[in-house]
């Protein structure tokens, strides 16, 4: 098993990219990552792309071939693979690329993620996203993702005393971070009052508790650590990669206020990295809904179970807190192009570890973490990155 490093990163502006198609965006992110890494096209030996539902969103499948083609690598016949794990597709693409390099099978590998979500109506998009849940046992009975996470939120509030204000504080904080991130979809401050005034989606979740529909793409270039310095002065090592699954349907879980897939993936990643949660300086976690960020910081071991809301309230996860969470703005404010999110998280942590995050740069970031969830927790991926 070889050590693997990120030697280049790229990310498009996130948002309603009506002027750009899926292929435009993935090419834009890919080329900027390649440029950042100083590799040449001939050196790239494999591509992995995370994409949840191009078939539903733009009626295009065969995304592996498409991105190889638009990266100018089809004529070199570079193997290109699309992977899918709903909203964790990006994180899964990163892991596949890590495994490919780590195993010695490939040297220079690109992991990309892309989703083009705004070409269809909101209803069609919601239905495509609902396919990440159990269609037969959840969706057919009327459940949507906001509804599932609303149930999680309700129980978390009852069991642990998490408050409505604490949910808002996640959104308020992430919007503040988004204001400092030029690629973020939303660059505006919000307040608890604004969250509460936004339409109710599924009690207790309002519109401003939910991540938006977003177009965007991100890419990272991986190399064996031993070769990384040849390309880049500031490679970022991938110390650990964990993946875990759980029941597809929320109601089959042991406890819906804990995502066991996150707990297991984190255990693997921390074990591999030989790092404790307390050593993490910055993390990008999967805040598809405000409650999801509270669950994440608990399940990743940053705080005790039930203490997530309090930690947010006390400012632990703010930019100047003990452990800044979602400095990019997270899924909530940076946007959530589902297949791209896992790669964008690695992009953000790489910038933080390289000291290139500008206005949102945190001091002395040594070790960072990314956490990407598929559906309501049927899949989770955790990666630990270090300077």
């Amino acid at each position: 098993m070889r050590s693997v490093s990120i030697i280049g990163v790229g990310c498009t502006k996130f948002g309603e990219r009506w002027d750009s198609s899926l292929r435009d965006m993935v090419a834009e992110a890919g080329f900027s990552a390649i440029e950042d890494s100083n590799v040449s096209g001939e050196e790239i030996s494999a591509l992995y792309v995370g994409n949840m539902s191009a078939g539903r969103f733009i009626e295009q499948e065969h995304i592996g071939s498409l991105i190889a083609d638009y990266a100018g690598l089809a004529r070199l016949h570079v193997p290109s693979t699309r992977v899918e794990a709903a909203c964790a597709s990006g994180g899964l693409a990163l892991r596949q690329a890590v495994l490919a390099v780590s195993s010695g099978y490939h040297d220079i590998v690109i992991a990309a993620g892309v989703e083009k979500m705004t070409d269809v109506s909101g209803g069609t998009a919601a239905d495509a996203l609902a396919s990440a849940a159990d269609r037969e046992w959840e969706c057919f009975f009327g459940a949507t993702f906001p509804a599932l996470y609303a149930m999680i939120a309700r129980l978390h509030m009852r069991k642990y005393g998490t408050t409505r204000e604490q949910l808002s504080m996640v959104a308020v904080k992430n919007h503040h971070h988004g204001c400092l991130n030029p690629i973020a979809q939303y660059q505006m401050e919000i307040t608890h009052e604004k969250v509460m005034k936004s339409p109710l989606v599924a009690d207790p979740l309002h519109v401003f508790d939910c991540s938006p529909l977003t177009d965007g793409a991100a890419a990272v270039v991986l190399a064996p650590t031993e070769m990384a310095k040849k390309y880049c002065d500031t490679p970022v090592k991938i110390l650990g990669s964990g993946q875990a699954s759980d029941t597809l349907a929320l109601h089959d879980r042991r406890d819906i206020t804990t995502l066991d897939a996150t707990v297991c993936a984190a255990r693997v990643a921390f074990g591999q990295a030989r790092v404790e949660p307390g050593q993490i300086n910055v993390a990008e976690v999967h805040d598809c809904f405000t409650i999801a960020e509270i669950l994440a910081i608990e399940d990743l071991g940053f705080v005790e179970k039930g203490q997530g809301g309090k930690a947010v309230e006390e400012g632990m996860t703010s930019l100047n807190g003990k452990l800044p969470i979602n400095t990019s703005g997270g899924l909530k404010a940076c946007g959530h192009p589902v297949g791209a999110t896992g790669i964008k998280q690695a992009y953000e942590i790489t910038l933080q570890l390289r000291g290139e995050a500008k206005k949102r740069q945190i001091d002395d970031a040594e070790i960072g973490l990314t956490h990407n969830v598929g559906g309501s927790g049927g899949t989770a991926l955790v990666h630990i990155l270090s300077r």
Partner: protein
Amino acid sequence: MASGIISYGVYIPRFRIRVDEIARVWGDGEDISEGLRVYEKSVPDMDEDAVTIAVEASRSAIHRAGIDPKRIGAVYAGSESHPYAVKPTGTIIGEAICTSHNFTAADLEFACKAGTAAIQACLGLVSSNLIDLGLAVGTDVSQGAPGDMLEYTAAAGGAAYVIGSSDLAAEIEAFQSFTTDTPDFWRREGMPYPEHGGRFTGEPAYFKHVTSAALGLLRRLDRVPEDYDYAVFHQPNGKFPVRVARKLGFSKEQIAPGMVVPMIGNTYSGSCLLGLAATLDVAKPGDRIFVTSFGSGAGSDAFSIKVKDRIEEIRDGAPSVRDYISKAQYLDYAMYAKHKGKLRL
């Protein structure tokens, strides 16, 4: 030779439904009207359609300036709700207002901006001296599917403009159009209600086209928003025209007289032209009015208009826009559904 508006006339059906009443039926809450900045919309009577509205507005235009309808050499009717798929609206208007039979007519459709396109067509014929007067009409009984966001704003109304080159009430100094193939809103043949691209109707459609046409015209004339006393922008809701005005540098005061959408909703082909009429109702000789329409699909026509002395002589010859707005009779959703033919027996 200067050409422009000889006279104008409007018509808005007297029935209204409150946006809150529609929201009550669909359970959308009370913040819909505030979000759209539209509080009421006009509803046609059961026997009113785009033709009857056009005829009322045209008669009013003829009457306002005492125009001999026999002088009219062209009738262009812009609408997206012509009652016939094949059979012109323009011919009915011509007969109803007693034009001679020596006039050309055609119906136009360009979503919400067919009325301003009709003005442009008339201007061409008048300016080149091919006809004496032209009648340009924007009229609609617009459709919104039950429960669709469009239902909150899709309203009924129209305006008619007599275009000529003498006795001008307002000179049309110049116009500039901006047109692209942008599918933000459409209704296919045989379909009762239009479809739309949701948020796509905003930035890449309305805002891009309105600002492109408006800035193009300002640049061409080497003018700035402060050179105008009033401005009118297409009013699909109460938010878009305010936001686009601010973006272009026009003030709330400049657009205030022409903002009719909060009280009557979006009258589609009538919208911008009713806004212009409401502004002509209060403008003084010498005032300049900047007008920009928008039609989905998509395009915008921007006009620079200078009000002439003659406006004072004709203004009171026909009812004003505010006269029609103030005559309101409210319907509940059931009666509204009956008026709009939403109940099929």
